């Protein structure tokens, strides 16, 4: 396997590098045959993994449609968004961090913490209009602290966000050790209300919030100077610094964004569960990281799309749905499937980037 990976790249490099290399990997092969263009799309390190994820999602959905009665419906598809709205928001924040080459392990604990804050404040009679902004500010500040630790004190992102994870999870227990249910009318209203889309289909307000976050993130990453700096830092921090880009500010801001997204995801999660519980969302950070990786973002940073991460979440969601439809398969198969999928995608990324070099 390794010989296969290493030998051809070294042999072929001079020929391919000059000839079809740069143009061959470009997605817009206007004058070329469609088959070659599709091949170029699949093998480009930038678009390849996303394309494969998209194809995989469609394939799983179609297979599910053939296997199970009632699977092939619009509502099953929409429920992927309804059930995973919070995970989409988390994956968006995580994408920003991973694009710079960092990682955020604290998101799961922050989701639990914001749920706990929401539940306990609402219980004492605070208004949701005050509680939600407070949560978003608090989690953004936590992200800011992590960002400062990472940038100013050069603590590795892994360790800094690990400390934040312990802090958030610990604070959950300090607030309460047992589950607090939410009875606030606004929250209940947001939890049960459905927005009809016609033809018997409906979504929840959470889905709209999640999609707005995704749209904003796409705009920020591809339409603003900040977004380009994020990609530049992932491509090479030193080069970004030498180009005069605001590396320090951007690196800190990325963790603030992730903190904000985790807080928002926590609020969406409480819309879904209508309670706060200190043990909830354990391991969610791994789901978010897995979604981002399956969505084609390179863990070393520099390559990847927010929409890819959304696709990653949908793939995780559709696997979960199939397991529900299957009925006989137990929940641990989800973990094994996700692990296997991660493996496939990482090897795929490896092959694609090796080919490029």
């Amino acid at each position: 396997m390794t010989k296969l990976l290493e030998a051809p790249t070294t042999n072929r490099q001079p020929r391919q590098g000059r000839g079809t290399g740069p143009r061959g990997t470009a997605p817009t092969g206007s004058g070329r045959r469609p088959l070659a263009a599709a091949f170029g799309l699949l093998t480009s390190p930038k678009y390849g993994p996303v394309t494969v994820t998209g194809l995989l999602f469609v394939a799983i959905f179609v297979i599910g449609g053939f296997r199970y009665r009632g699977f092939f419906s619009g509502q099953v598809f929409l429920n992927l968004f309804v059930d995973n709205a919070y995970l989409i928001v988390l994956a968006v924040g995580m994408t920003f961090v991973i694009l710079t080459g960092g990682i955020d392990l604290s998101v799961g604990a922050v989701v639990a913490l914001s749920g706990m804050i929401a539940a306990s404040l609402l219980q004492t009679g605070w208004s949701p209009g005050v509680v939600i902004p407070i949560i978003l500010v608090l989690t953004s500040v936590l992200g800011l602290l992590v960002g400062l630790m990472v940038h100013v004190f050069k603590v590795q992102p892994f360790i800094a966000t690990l400390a934040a994870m312990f802090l958030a999870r610990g604070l959950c227990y300090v607030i309460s050790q047992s589950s607090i249910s939410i009875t606030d009318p606004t929250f209940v209203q947001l939890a049960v209300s459905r927005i009809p889309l016609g033809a018997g289909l409906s979504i929840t307000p959470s889905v709209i919030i999640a999609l707005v976050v995704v749209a904003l993130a796409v705009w920020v990453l591809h339409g603003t100077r900040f977004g380009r700096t994020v990609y530049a830092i992932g491509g090479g921090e030193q080069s970004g610094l030498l180009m005069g880009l605001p590396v320090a500010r951007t690196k800190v801001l990325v963790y603030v964004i992730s903190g904000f997204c985790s807080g928002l995801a926590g609020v969406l999660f409480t819309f879904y569960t209508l309670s706060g519980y200190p043990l909830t969302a354990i391991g969610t950070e791994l789901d978010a990281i897995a979604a981002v990786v399956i969505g084609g973002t390179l863990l070393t940073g520099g390559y990847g799309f927010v929409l890819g991460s959304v696709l990653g979440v949908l793939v995780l969601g559709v696997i979960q749905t199939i397991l529900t439809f299957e009925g006989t398969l137990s929940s641990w198969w989800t973990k094994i499937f996700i692990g296997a999928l991660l493996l496939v995608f990482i090897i795929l990324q490896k092959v694609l980037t090796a080919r490029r070099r």
Partner: protein
Amino acid sequence: MSALAKMASNRLFWPVVMLLVLFAINLVAFPGFFEITVRDGQLFGSLIDILRNGAPTLIIAVGMTLVIATRGIDLSVGAVAAISGAVACSIILGSPAPGSLATVAVAITVALLISLVLGVWNGFLVAALGIQPIIATLILMTAGRGVAMLITEGQILTVNSPPFKFLGSGFWFGIPVAVIIAAVVFGLAALITRRTALGMFIESVGINPEASRQAGVRARGLLFAVYTFCALCAAIAGLILTANTAAADANNTGLFIELDAILAVVIGGTSLAGGRYSLLGTLVGALVIQTLVTTVYTVGIPPIATMVFKAAVVTIVCLLQSPTTAEALSGFRRRLAVRSGKGVAAS
């Protein structure tokens, strides 16, 4: 002053200070903290408890130190611990004589052999396929818990086997068996890597993999060995944890232990960027973490707040060890020296 400065520049300085501070807090809250009594020929006392409860973390941290020294990381240790516990318990449960020594020996051997396979798998992903260690081991971390649940079929397996229980809560010559196992693992790792050139090879791979390959170090084999050793350590720790409660819980055995182990290594002054490592530092780090947990109990802080304190200690140690702090401190010292130098000149 210069002796103190020399000491402060030692990597072990801040972790040891932290440990001493924790000991002092304990002593104030509980005057009998350092007392060790002998009851029925067995040692008892707070310090013994710290050693015994910290043994699994220390064992994993030893393996983790070597992995981190090669610029890697192993997130799968908790899952490997859960798998080994699940394998051992299901073998003991399935045998006709769960209490016999032979059954337990077979169970332990099989569990350790399986962990070797898992370690080779991690090593294959990292060394042969060249996947980033954090992601390569994330695969087993996610899938491993699923595999452990598959083995236990989602149940908590409770075993009634005195020889197996001995592993977790037994005493040998008055010393807890878990502590003896941890000491043996620590001693072996120190002996093999520090009395041979192996440790230097590991460090060279961590500092610059390409340069060490060109210098003739066989990085690939070394990575395989290191990840396999780490998985073996995880399995040993998993067996101790499982034996201690006499139950295999696929969901909770070794949950978050990878984080504790990595923390122990980082507190001990080994950089996650690879290169120079300190097994002694890891020992101190593991003791700091376990003492912290004990402190929370003795001082009377509700145990639920343990994680907040862990976060505080991690943050403090990381900030103290940060190059930014070192720079600021040395700048301060220089300014101090300049001022005193001026004073001397004036007089």
